[in-house]
């Protein structure tokens, strides 16, 4: 477990998506009213930056680009969404928001490691 401080919870208004960099790892934090989620900063569909393309309402995060959406309580995919969100575990301590960041979470289309696993396109 490597818990790292992201920010004060109060810095992220309800129903907003905010971008952070924690020890070189870019992520976005979403306050969906009933809790917080820390996720990679891009949409798993076509890599749009969620801090701009994401909108949160009624605990659902929707990317306005092509309407992929996830219920942030359960991470359940909504509508025609075809890929799950990846998330960092988060917790609050005395109003500070912490995320468990062991390494950067990426979606396989952005296979930066360059390995030639030819199935990465589908995951």
């Amino acid at each position: 477990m490597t818990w790292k401080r992201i920010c004060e919870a109060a810095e992220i208004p309800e129903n907003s998506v905010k971008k952070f960099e924690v020890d070189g790892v870019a992520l976005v934090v979403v306050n969906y009213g009933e809790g917080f989620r820390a996720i990679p900063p891009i949409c798993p569909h076509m890599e749009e930056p969620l801090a701009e393309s994401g909108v949160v309402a009624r605990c659902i995060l929707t990317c306005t680009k092509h309407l992929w959406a996830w219920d942030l309580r359960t991470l359940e995919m909504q509508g025609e969404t075809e890929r799950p969100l990846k998330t960092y575990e988060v917790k609050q301590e005395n109003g500070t928001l912490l995320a468990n960041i062991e390494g950067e979470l990426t979606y396989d289309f952005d296979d930066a490691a360059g390995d030639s696993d030819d199935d990465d396109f589908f995951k």
Partner: protein
Amino acid sequence: MNTHERDMKVTVQNKNGELTFDCGERESILYAGLRQGINLPFECATGTCGTCRARVTSGDVDVRWKDAPGGARLKPDKGDILMCQARARSDCLLRVPSELVIADTAGPAMRRGIIRGLRPLTNDVMHFDLHLTSPMSFQAGQFVVLEAAGIAGGRAYSMVNFANDVERLALVVKRKPGGRFGDLLFDNLSGEAEVEVFGPLGRAVFRPEEDRNFVCIAGGSGIAGMMSILECATQVDYFRNHKGALFFGVRTLADAFYLEQLSRYAAASHGNLDVTVALSDETIGAKLHAEFPILKLANGMVHEVAAKGMAEWDRNVIAYVAGPPIMVDSTIRSLIVGGIPIKDIRYDKFS
């Protein structure tokens, strides 16, 4: 299809299986699949959105528009292509990221058409008619892609009219600075021009049998498909027992068009169709249009005017959105915040 051409076999795979279809030498892989009823993923069909990406795992393809903005995030070294911009040069094996099925309805087809009947509507908007060599049926809200000799690539235009088995499509173009198709219509067209027409395409369609109230939110030329939807609704007297609203965003009143036609739809709607012209760059005190007082006027960005206008509405509506990508994104955002479920939002980005 020209039968003298050699057909390649294109096989598309995804994790659920694979399908094979024929692809002629002169057609894009996307269009070949679509005309054979395969629901390959796409949105713009013209290289801007990136939705039709695929990975070539074997075979040879020719990428027509190498700098297509929709390809910005692809990995060409891994064989990634936009299917709307690629032609097969041999039999090919491709992977696509979404599920594949064969449609049971008639797919789009390639036709030829002749552009006639140009009619300027504002200083940068031109109405035109496209006379087809064979009739086409489409759903209200759909578009076609036109290819003109001497202009690289296709341009998507939404139908303005509505009827089954039509030989004439009514279309409208908003000129953009340096735009080649806009220039062709505004400057260089003396009389007629022949174009290739692929369609109909698009999922942001109106189907009367859905039996729902609806709202249309259009920015600029995004009004095109909404005219088709309102024409279809008026033909079946849909507003006798449904409510509808149209929010038409333009910069100034001088940029608005089709107002006479819109006032006719409103007048025929039994009071159930509300039309509001939203002016983003001009402040007007009047609440109603002077010449067509059935049309309302409002000041502000169209997505904000629409959000305000819909505040009292039941959330159980279908929302159609079309126009420039930024306008569509802002509108989608305000619809979601306003409580419209994503399954009821249908959009076209005129990128």
